[in-house]
């Protein structure tokens, strides 16, 4: 039986991890809500952002968090371009399937270019406060993990406010709920969809920077992320941002706790077991999301 301290430590670690999962899954959910697109390249952009943060730190010698000043707008623009220039040109009737392949191709291109530019060597940012930790009720929390979690929470909160309190958010939600109706009430759904994509990709920029603070990165790392993220958005109910966030925190927590008795590898299978169970018993997801039934 694991000690109480280890359990508590694992709960904390699970919550910290879940926060990052939640931010990234929110982006994936946005794409799906807007266009019914499963964006395989999301985690490739995540790793790209992490590399840019690493590069900023090692080459320019400034704090990796500052790289977001460039990467967030850059990724927003890339998202708009990706939607307007590529995805919206696919034939509507085969869009879901073909968009998977197209974004898969984008992921391969990013992975190849990262490997070309930075080689396959594993990289890690070396920060002065990298090994520092805080003592909280008997558990120790690494400072870098706390920063990453804080970033994720801030970004999610900003996304929430944007969706709920602004005119653009209102238009975006209307587009997600019923595209044709949104068009009828005068929303330029094409443009809104493009910006929505940019927003999704901007979450990858923030998530990637957070990720780079405390883990190793290498070009093919994105395969390691896309599986859990896709499982999260299905469990949360395709298209539902709050559902994805709830599923992310829950699954992150379960993964962290399962590592105590089962070890790292088996613990990862929880994502896929949850995915299969969701599809078999409750295809619309466990946290709302009406879309999944049909897609």
């Amino acid at each position, binding site marked *: 039986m694991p000690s109480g301290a280890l359990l508590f430590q694992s709960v904390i670690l699970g919550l910290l991890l879940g926060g990052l999962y939640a931010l990234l899954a929110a982006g994936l959910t946005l794409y799906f809500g807007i266009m019914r697109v499963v964006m395989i390249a999301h985690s490739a952009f995540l790793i790209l952002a992490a590399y840019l943060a690493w590069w900023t730190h090692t080459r320019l010698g400034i704090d990796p968090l500052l790289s977001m000043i460039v990467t967030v707008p850059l990724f927003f623009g890339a998202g708009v371009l990706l939607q307007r220039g590529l995805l919206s040109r696919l034939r509507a009737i085969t869009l879901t399937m073909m968009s998977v392949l197209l974004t898969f191709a984008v992921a391969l291109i990013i992975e190849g270019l990262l490997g070309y530019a930075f080689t396959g060597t594993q990289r890690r940012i070396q920060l002065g406060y990298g090994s520092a*930790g805080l003592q909280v009720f008997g558990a120790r929390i690494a400072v870098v993990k706390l920063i990453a979690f804080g970033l994720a929470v801030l970004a999610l909160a900003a996304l929430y406010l944007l969706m709920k309190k602004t005119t653009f958010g209102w238009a975006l939600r209307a587009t997600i709920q019923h595209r044709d109706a949104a068009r009828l009430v005068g929303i330029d759904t094409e443009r809104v969809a493009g910006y929505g994509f940019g927003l999704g990709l901007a979450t990858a920029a923030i998530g990637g920077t957070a990720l780079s603070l405390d*883990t190793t990165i290498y070009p093919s790392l994105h395969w390691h992320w896309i599986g859990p993220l896709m499982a999260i958005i299905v469990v949360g109910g395709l298209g539902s941002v709050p559902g994805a966030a709830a599923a992310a925190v829950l699954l992150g927590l379960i993964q962290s706790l399962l590592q105590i008795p089962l070890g790292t590898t088996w613990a990862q299978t929880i994502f896929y077991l949850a995915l299969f169970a969701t599809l078999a018993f409750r295809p619309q997801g466990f946290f709302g999301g009406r879309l999944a039934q049909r897609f």
Partner: protein
Amino acid sequence: MRSSLRRTRWATALGATTILALGACSGDGDGGSTATDDPILVGISLPLTGDFSEPGKGVQQGYEAWAKITNDKGGLLGRQIQLKILDDQSNADRVVADYEQLIGSDEADLVVGPFSTRLVVPAARVAEEYGMLFVEPAGAAKEVFSQGFKNLFYAAPAVANDHYNHLAEYLLALPADKRPKTVAYAAMDDPFAQGTAYGLKDKLEAAGIKTVVNEVYPPNTTDFSSIAAKIASSKADMLVGGSQYQDGVNLIVALQQLNYQPKLAAFSGAPTNPEFAKAIGNKTEGVLSPTGYSPDAPYPSNKEFVEKFTAQFGKAPDEDQANAYTTGQVVAAAVTAVGCAEQGDCQKKLVDWVHGNKVETVVGPLSWDQTGKPQGAHMIQQWVGGRIRIVLPEAVKEAEFVYPKPAW
């Protein structure tokens, strides 16, 4: 459009035929004669891209240094050495295709091994089935030697499971109250990395030293906080990491975050890396690592190797480079002694020669048992006073063993 649909099919059929036929024609090799002044073509497949690409490049430098140094001295049997290096993308399917190509299409006179245990076994099978001598620099796990290969030789002092033999002897010779009582093991899911950690584990467990944590993590693990939490909560006296490079660093940083302080910490791979100290915040004092090679080793050919390698690449050689160079030395010794280097009967003679002889190399004299397993042990190095020094065995030590290890 029924007819047009049909036509599509037959257009395809014809297209396919053409491509097949073209494929069949394009393969004509230059079936060359082997006149005595032809260069000796040495075929190698290495992981130059993909997961093993970093050590793969080290091995490549070792082979290039060997070819240059040998050619500068007039080559082998009066023939120049020509390397043909293919990239296997760290992929087992590719490594097999590469050796098929090197042996079948390029008609290489000699082939030597790739990097990583995972690729050595499939590659060695190709060489074995074409009857080629196969000396390799990287297949150190015991599984390599249980496949029944007759032509395979590992060109390093010891297999993975024997890497910590000197450390185990040292610890078991300590008085019972000074020995570590509990040990935590964390090993990458890789035959080599696991082999090193479990070799030590078997010996310590047999002597009654308790295993309190035994974790295996997949090679793509980037977040070590959960493993670290388990190790830290076990408060083990000693930590053994079956690591390559980055995973060892990540584990140490995660343990530092949790403020876990073992009395001994040993890692395979990581601590010998030039960037190790910086990566863990220079808190290296007392960290242990086994090594099969030291640039300071007194063997005659080593001085020449270190000097010329440094001149060629601008830095001292590492273990990967040395193992590749050693591989070259073993092959060269056999070729010189037997007096031939080509496919066919010659290969059998080369194999027999290596089985029956001892070869002087940059890692010391090497000899092999029937399975191609080398008969030696690794030295143990430790970070002492900001440098990594040999501490075991007694006979070659450069510094005193530090125990218990200072805090990191």
